[in-house]
């Protein structure tokens, strides 16, 4: 197999679509060819980028309602025993058998998947913070107070960021901007603690690999504090929204701010 043959099979190789013999040949080539191994890594990075970050545009509720009204509902009718029970019980039985086999495998690997997912969220929060720091004009709205910043997000996001803490002498609210957290838009609130910048990202929380372990009760929330690359990060959920707090300030100070942010209005 030469490089051209291997590259034409890379996507199928990564998706597990190749016959065993061909798969072995591709793997053997990748182990000895640095250029093709690098191309394979680039393809994988591209797939992960698209799967995790390409913005999704789901249908609006209004469109869903229109479509649901467009399709006629199923009329009631007398059904045979098999139609009423057999068709529902048989698939359920099959699913039960499949689950009995799959659940042990799932739980064996679940902690690893969860840890990877959490690491991705933490890395994303830090990267977003770094982008903000590197930006020449990080703030799209300068703060004259929370009641100036929050309304600015109206019409710019498909959700209302719930932030009740208006800033104080310890944590001054500087302003806000629109950012992205993985595949979704985020409201970015920027606070100052002495000379340190603190980013608060608020985003829709569904469909993300939220941590379920090492949670700490802070105020009324269960938060996940951690540190990576010298930055402290706190993640938590409240209702449908997710929150990520990132800064190089001391972890206790960041938790103090998380506590203030978690308080109900």
């Amino acid at each position, binding site marked *: 197999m030469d*490089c*051209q043959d291997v*590259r*034409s099979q890379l*996507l199928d190789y990564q998706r597990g*679509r190749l016959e065993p013999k061909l798969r072995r040949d591709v793997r053997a080539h990748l182990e000895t060819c640095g*250029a093709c191994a*690098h*191309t394979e*890594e*680039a*393809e994988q*990075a*591209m797939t*992960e*980028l*698209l*799967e995790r*970050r*390409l*913005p*999704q*545009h*789901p*249908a*609006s509720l209004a*469109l*869903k309602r*229109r*479509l*649901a009204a*467009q*399709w*006629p*509902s*199923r*009329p009631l009718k007398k059904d045979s025993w098999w139609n009423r029970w057999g*068709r529902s019980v048989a*698939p359920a039985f099959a699913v039960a058998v499949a689950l009995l086999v799959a659940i042990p495998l799932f739980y064996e690997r679940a902690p690893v998947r969860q840890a990877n997912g959490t690491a991705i969220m933490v890395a994303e929060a830090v*990267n977003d913070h770094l*982008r903000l720091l590197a930006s020449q004009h990080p703030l799209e709205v300068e703060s004259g107070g929370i009641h100036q910043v929050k309304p600015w997000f109206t019409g710019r996001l498909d959700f209302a960021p719930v932030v009740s803490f208006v800033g104080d002498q310890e944590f001054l609210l500087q302003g806000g901007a629109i*950012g*992205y957290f*993985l*595949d*979704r*838009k985020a409201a970015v609130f920027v606070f100052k603690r002495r000379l340190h910048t603190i980013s608060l990202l608020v985003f829709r929380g569904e469909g993300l690999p939220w941590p379920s372990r090492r949670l700490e009760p802070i105020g009324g929330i269960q938060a996940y504090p951690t540190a990576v690359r010298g930055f402290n990060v706190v993640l938590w959920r409240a209702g449908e929204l997710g929150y990520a707090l990132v800064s190089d300030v001391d972890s206790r100070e960041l938790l103090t701010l998380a506590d203030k942010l978690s308080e109900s209005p």
Partner: protein
Amino acid sequence: MWSREEPDLGAALGREALAYVDTLHNTARYLTGNDADADDLVQETYARALGAADQFTPGTNLKAWLFRILRNTFISLYRRQRNNPIVGGLDTVDPFAQGPADEKWLRDDIELDRLRNIVAEEIEKAMMRLSEEARAVILLDLEGLTEVEVAHVLGCAVGTVKSRLARARAALRQQLGDYAR
């Protein structure tokens, strides 16, 4: 589940079909470029699917069938309105014959790291700079359709799907390179 023998075929099919509305809307949004046209395209797709419910073969992939209707609807309603080059060479060049030069900006690990850190907004912009044909094949692949199903949706040979997808991803990588530098 429903079967062809049921008299309320459209209703049963509709319930299953509506489960795909988000993913169809997402693809429609990337094809049309705006929410209003995407809404219209999805609504027309479901109207046509409802009218053609008896043509659906039970046991085949409903999602792929809906994507094919969406795609054909897009072509009939939108593509003719534009002077869109569409295929634009996706089928005319062997993507695998170009060799390592295709990866000009992904030569080292630093550049790969830059690729991994591109933000969502930039990916969307890069996608929208591709031809509609390239966007379609990338999205269908992301949706988990097999090459055979993608070929059915696009109305082309299976081998063509493979080369189109490779060309489309190469084009996207080049576009993303502009943002990663």
